[in-house]
């Protein structure tokens, strides 16, 4: 077993102190070390976006990032989006537009969609498509996903 490293970081606004093996990925730390199963493991190699989380305000694939690199950083996972018992407006929009089917891709999809809107509150539908290229969904066909994001940015539900 590799050397263990002490880490301090902020996870969904709460401080975390933990020891991790040096070679562990962030995804394994979240799911197995911290029992936060919202962030999904699918491809494990950066191709699908199911493991997307926000670190210091930027989204990354947690299956590629090394846990040791979390030192001092701020992390948000899907578990941190909800405000109390109320869904986050992005989550609510996905529900309202029927944008979720099996749901496996959704934690990553919603984190990424929320990030895109924070980056650019006037996002166009084309920009949404570009920004969600790294999130693969096997069920929905994406149209309703785009409708949900469009609703959050106040676009009419154009189909283009």
């Amino acid at each position, binding site marked *: 077993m590799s*050397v263990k490293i002490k880490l301090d970081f902020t996870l969904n606004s709460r401080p975390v102190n933990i020891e991790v093996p040096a*070679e562990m990925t962030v995804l394994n730390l979240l799911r197995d070390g911290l029992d936060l199963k919202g962030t999904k493991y699918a491809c494990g190699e*950066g191709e699908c*976006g199911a493991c997307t989380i926000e670190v210091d305000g930027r*989204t990354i694939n947690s299956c*590629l*990032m090394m846990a*040791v690199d979390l030192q001092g950083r701020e992390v948000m996972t899907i578990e941190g989006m909800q405000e109390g018992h109320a869904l986050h407006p992005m989550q609510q929009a996905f529900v309202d537009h029927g944008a979720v089917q099996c749901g496996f891709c959704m934690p990553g999809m919603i984190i990424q969609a929320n990030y895109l809107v924070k980056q650019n509150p006037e996002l166009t539908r084309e920009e949404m498509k570009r920004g969600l290229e*790294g999130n693969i969904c096997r069920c929905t066909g994406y149209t309703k996903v785009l409708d949900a994001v469009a609703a959050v940015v106040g676009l009419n539900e154009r189909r283009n």
Partner: protein
Amino acid sequence: MSEIERYIAPNQLDDALEALAGGPVTIVAGATDLTPQITGGKRVYKATLMNIQHIEGLNAVTKKDGKIRIGSLVTVSEIRGNPMLKKHGGILCQAANHFASEQIRNAATIGGNICNASPAGDMIIPFLVLGAAVELARWQDDRIETRSVPLDEFFTGPGRSVARDDELLTAVIFDVPPENSIGFFRKSGPRPALEISTVSIGIGGDFSDGTLKNVRVAFGAVGPTALRGKLTEAALEGKTLNQDVIQAAALAARQDVSPIDDIRATKWYRTHLIGVFTEELLNNVCQN
């Protein structure tokens, strides 16, 4: 996966270089190449794992004294959105725009892209077109010693370069291109996002009155390393672009490359694409 005995994340370049001089170290930046290589069993960790993301001074893009300097920790996302580079090195932004996905671009560093030395490394192509050099630093006689290597002399094979084990890539540097410079990048794969290039190509130079000068052409995924297209450059240098010149350049481009058959495409198809893309980009230059 072998054992990591020591993990370090230095803030200062001195400390990082001293650690490298002290022997076997695995360097990690965004980890987007390293993690899949480790989990896929293509690579094992060395005794020390060094995270370079916290080293000060490696994450800036600056323009000074006629040179543009991009620190090795600058991410592909930062290049994609950098207004100064859009103006003075637009071909870099084009390549960044066709790179992987937003999540990967947010993590992927240019130092990692170059040091991974993949023949299909997308940021390598625009840097070759811009005539860039890499700055390599190491610890020698109790101080930092740097050297500059032109990028077209850096790669020695797939995954290999002239960088020594004790050297860190600290920056990529190129001359601010003149006002009349142009540059175009094109990459191909079965889908637009998250695609390893089947082939990629970049063409740039100074363009006035329909004539190209100081032409640089670079090709990716068509040989053991990304490479300059010397025959194509010669077919274009000082020429006024017309259909004859463009056809001659497209023919030269096919001779410049030596692709292989692999799971992504055949040698024949790659050679064909290189000709087609050369023609297409030169037509873009004419319409510019």
